[in-house]
């Protein structure tokens, strides 16, 4: 059974409301790795990503009645939206002033990233991620969801709350900025 079929099956189980606990066993199996990395790319620190991943599954479980599926969004989009919101909320708690923008954390995230690099990491992957971490949040989210998670722009637009054209524009700007820093990588 391929992943798309399984996603559809799990979504059906949730919509039917027959066995939510069993549906969540499948969701955790299917999405743990993808969501962990999505969250990690937002918050950088492993411990934070671990906590937020758990919050994502628990929040999704408690709000399972709110999942409508169909035209309102896929199961993947719904889970990514919860994870994104929780990741952004965690970052908001980290910044100093209430009114300072979330992008004021760029420097801190960049410093956190340097301490989180695996000693066995590929050099180009490090350069790319260093450039991504430094992007403004809107651009970073769109870039990550498109480049790493390979989601369609329609889905990205729903997850990030941006219009379709804004999502595409932000992706374009993100790619331009990253290319400046990492010219040898083909994006």
């Amino acid at each position: 059974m391929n992943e798309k079929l399984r996603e559809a099956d799990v979504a059906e189980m949730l919509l039917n409301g027959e066995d939510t606990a069993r549906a969540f066993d499948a969701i955790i199996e299917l999405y743990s790795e993808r969501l962990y990395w999505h969250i990690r790319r937002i918050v950088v620190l492993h411990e934070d990503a671990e906590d937020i991943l758990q919050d994502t599954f628990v929040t999704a479980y408690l709000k399972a009645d709110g999942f409508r599926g169909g035209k309102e969004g896929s199961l993947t989009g719904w889970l990514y939206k919860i994870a994104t919101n929780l990741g952004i909320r965690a970052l908001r708690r980290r910044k100093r002033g209430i009114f300072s923008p979330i992008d004021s954390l760029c420097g801190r995230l960049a410093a956190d990233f340097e301490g989180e690099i695996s000693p066995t990491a590929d050099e180009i992957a490090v350069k790319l991620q260093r450039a991504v971490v430094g992007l403004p949040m809107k651009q970073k989210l769109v870039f990550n969801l498109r480049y790493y998670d390979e989601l369609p722009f329609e889905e990205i637009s729903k997850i990030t709350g941006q219009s379709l054209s804004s999502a595409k524009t932000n992706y374009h700007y993100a790619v331009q900025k990253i290319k400046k820093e990492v010219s040898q990588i083909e994006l």
Partner: protein
Amino acid sequence: MNEMKQMPYRVPDGFIEMSKIRNRAAVRRAATGRERLGKAVRWAVPAFATLAVAICAVIYFEPEHDRDMKRLMAQMETASDDVIYEMSLEVVDYAEDLSQL
């Protein structure tokens, strides 16, 4: 993810599989918590309804003379002396005693 998309972050060995176990347990705890909340709500609704009925009963069966007195006091606020006297006759058993005042 292809080779280029490998993430350069440090991750504890076996983290993803361990996190699946922990997160399934967390969801089960949330399920139990919600079930308990559901039970509490199921108990709270009839208890609240019983309390509401009791309050309504107390209000409804308020001693009759208290209600007459309140009605009389409200009417007294704006009534003329003659009207006050007439109204007093309606609610006082010994009107002749009152007329001597």
